[in-house]
């Protein structure tokens, strides 16, 4: 069930009605929990039991942790959470690589056929509960006493599948209190949802068609096509995930729940560090607080910690060497950047921003390519001769790339700061919302999953 589907709207509308009609917070939470379970079961119903089990185990573990602080218990529950993640997401890859490794030493084993399903959003909700366990252990938050509150915290459908990764201290207090309906929040939530629909259907899915074509057979691409398609992928990925996060925030606002911002114009960053402060913000913060700092952070061997943290972040995104390399190279770049003091000259800021964008785009090749071979073939067409130009650029691609590059900072302002949106007269707000929906209506049709569903 995608956010941009009729089945989701058929779930959302009654859930909203029941939620705001209820006078008791317990009933409201029950509505949210049932809606979340239905939403999750719609994708793959057996996964719901995994979700329930994760909720039960983590609830009990945190309660026990509060009664007596135990590092062993924390380790056990994190190992269990990450073990489930490893089993579903990485076991096939790990076994396959071990078998291939052994074959190098002459030990030929049959490659196992693995047909494991990947529960949607497992990487996101695993990280959420790991953060919760650590926060309870560190006594930064108390363990939640209500199973219903914890279950909604863990399963709230707006952010269950692809984040943002919400911390306990951000969401749990809000779920405990009976909030009154705030029309302004609902109003802004509708706009955010429409903005997300535009980004997903009107931008990401349009660009996706060009990108998929380019990565099918990169060896035959003209140099100009390879670069254009790479920029198209950079925008596609951004619009896809930004669109999802914006819809999630919009849904949250409609329920009176503020979800954290996940993107802040990342392609306008003038350093890679700044990029990661603007791209998938909640994940970056998670890695900072629960991996980088525990590894030693800036205190000792910062370069090693950065490379290690980013490599793990790469692995988090997918089981494959392309992701490992993508993460490691980001880590190396961050480490180098840390050594070199940035130029304070504002006149160089544009150049730095352009350089960071090009560098990030080049690394996106690894992120998008299904295999190393495809990635190298793509790099060859980007960087090596023969340098060829295709004079025919599809009108839609050209207009979308330029349009998105020019207009996305404006949309970022409207979707970040509600006052900017409310500064428009009501008729203009409605007209903007309709414009977004019309673009989506025109370009909708073929439904594609959100890219980050795969993570």
């Amino acid at each position: 069930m995608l956010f941009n589907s009729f089945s989701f709207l058929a779930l959302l509308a009654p859930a909203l009605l029941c939620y705001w009609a209820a006078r008791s917070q317990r009933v409201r939470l029950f509505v949210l929990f049932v809606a979340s379970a239905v939403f999750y079961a719609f994708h793959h119903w057996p996964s719901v039991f995994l979700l329930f089990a994760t909720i039960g185990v983590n609830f009990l573990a945190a309660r026990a942790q509060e009664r007596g602080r135990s590092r062993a218990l924390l380790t056990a529950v994190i190992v269990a959470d990450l073990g489930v993640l490893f089993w579903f997401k990485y076991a096939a890859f790990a076994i396959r690589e071990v078998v291939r490794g052994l074959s190098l030493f002459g030990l030929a084993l049959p490659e196992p056929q693995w047909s494991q399903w990947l529960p949607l959003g497992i990487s996101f909700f695993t990280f959420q509960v790991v953060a919760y366990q650590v926060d309870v252990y560190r006594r930064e938050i108390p363990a939640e006493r209500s199973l219903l509150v914890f279950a909604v915290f863990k399963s709230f459908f707006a952010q269950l599948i692809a984040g943002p990764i919400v911390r306990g201290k951000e969401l749990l207090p809000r779920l405990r209190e009976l909030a009154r309906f705030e029309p302004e929040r609902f109003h802004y939530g509708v706009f955010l949802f429409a903005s997300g629909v535009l980004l997903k259907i009107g931008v990401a899915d349009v660009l996706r068609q060009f990108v998929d074509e380019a990565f099918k057979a990169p060896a035959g691409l003209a140099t100009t096509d390879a670069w254009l398609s790479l920029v198209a992928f950079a925008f596609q990925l951004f619009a896809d995930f930004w669109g999802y996060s914006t819809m999630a925030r919009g849904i949250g606002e409609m329920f009176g729940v503020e979800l954290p911002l996940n993107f802040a114009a990342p392609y306008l960053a003038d350093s890679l560090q700044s990029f990661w402060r603007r791209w998938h913000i909640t994940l970056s913060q998670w890695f900072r607080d629960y991996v980088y700092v525990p590894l030693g952070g800036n205190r000792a061997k910062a370069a090693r910690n950065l490379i290690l943290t980013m490599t793990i972040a790469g692995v988090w995104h997918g089981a494959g060497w392309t992701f490992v390399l993508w993460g490691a190279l980001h880590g190396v770049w961050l480490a180098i950047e840390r050594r070199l003091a940035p130029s304070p000259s504002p006149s160089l800021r544009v150049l730095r921003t352009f350089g960071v964008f090009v560098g990030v785009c080049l690394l996106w090749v690894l992120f998008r390519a299904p295999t190393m071979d495809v990635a190298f073939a793509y790099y060859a067409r980007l960087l090596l001769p023969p340098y060829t130009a295709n004079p025919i650029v599809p009108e839609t691609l050209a207009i979308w790339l330029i349009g998105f590059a020019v207009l996305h900072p404006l949309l970022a302002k409207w979707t970040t700061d509600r006052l900017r949106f409310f500064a428009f007269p009501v008729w203009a707000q409605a007209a903007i919302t309709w414009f977004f929906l019309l673009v989506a209506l025109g370009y909708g049709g073929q439904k594609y999953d959100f890219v980050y569903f795969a993570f």
Partner: protein
Amino acid sequence: MRRLGAYLLALALIGAALELFARGFRTTLIDASHRALFKAALLDRRLPVDVVFFGSSRTGEALRPMSFSDELAAGGARRMSAFNMSVQYTSLEILDALATRFAAAPGLRLAIVEVTKHQLTRAPVPWSDAPAGADFDARVGGWLVAHSALVAARKVLVLDSLARLFAILAVGGRFDGTEQFGTDYAAKIFGGAADVDRSAYAAVECAPVASEGGDPSLFAGELEIYTRIAGAFSARGVQVVFYVPPMQDTVTATEIDPNHRALRAALHARTGAPVLDFSTCQLPPAYFRDAIHLSHVGGSHFSRMLARALAKESVARAVQ
């Protein structure tokens, strides 16, 4: 609360206004939403027309109405109006739908129909695109398509369609069907159209060959459709001529494949309509944009070549 109410009311009012507009211009919007319907809408605005060319993008490049009409007129026939009804990425089903729609068009005397591998593509007619499937989303989508003109005509909101909508509303009657892109529209609107210089290739000539022999059973379904198309035209007194445009590489051309030749021979045998096969013509490289599409020069010259061939064939009744 008042502000939220005003916002929701404004959304509803704008939505209602859009729906009303879509209902008022439903046919035009839907015509603009697909390249085949767009061509049909342009032809509607130009009727009556004497000659219509049906085919794929190959016909789009190969047959220029102005050159074709000039050549016929130069041969002593009265000047006839022509329209290029070719459709890029077409299918036999699209051809069937368009031929059926215009078989009884006022003034139509001659239909020239392409028979090539590209025209033989099979696919459902794309503009009856109610969401497929039986799941909840598909059923809601289908209901909306049936009950909302805005949703039914939603493809007009795509950039290409908006350009076509502008063309239909503003200047549709001036187009002869050879315009494919926004740049073509602009050229036609602002610059008019001129024929190419004929002197350079004046000596180039190629006569069509007859298709014969072979086993057409491979294309039994396609033969049925073509026969039906020919029947639709004949029933209304319209002369139909099938043709195969030239190709650059006649060695690897699909059109000289025995099965394709057999299809054309069977088509002639069944319908009695002439089948003019230019696929083996050896034409100068400058006549081609790529292996299968003629260039502007090539299209202009070939249009005249076809007109001369028609004058010699037994289609004199239609072209006189």
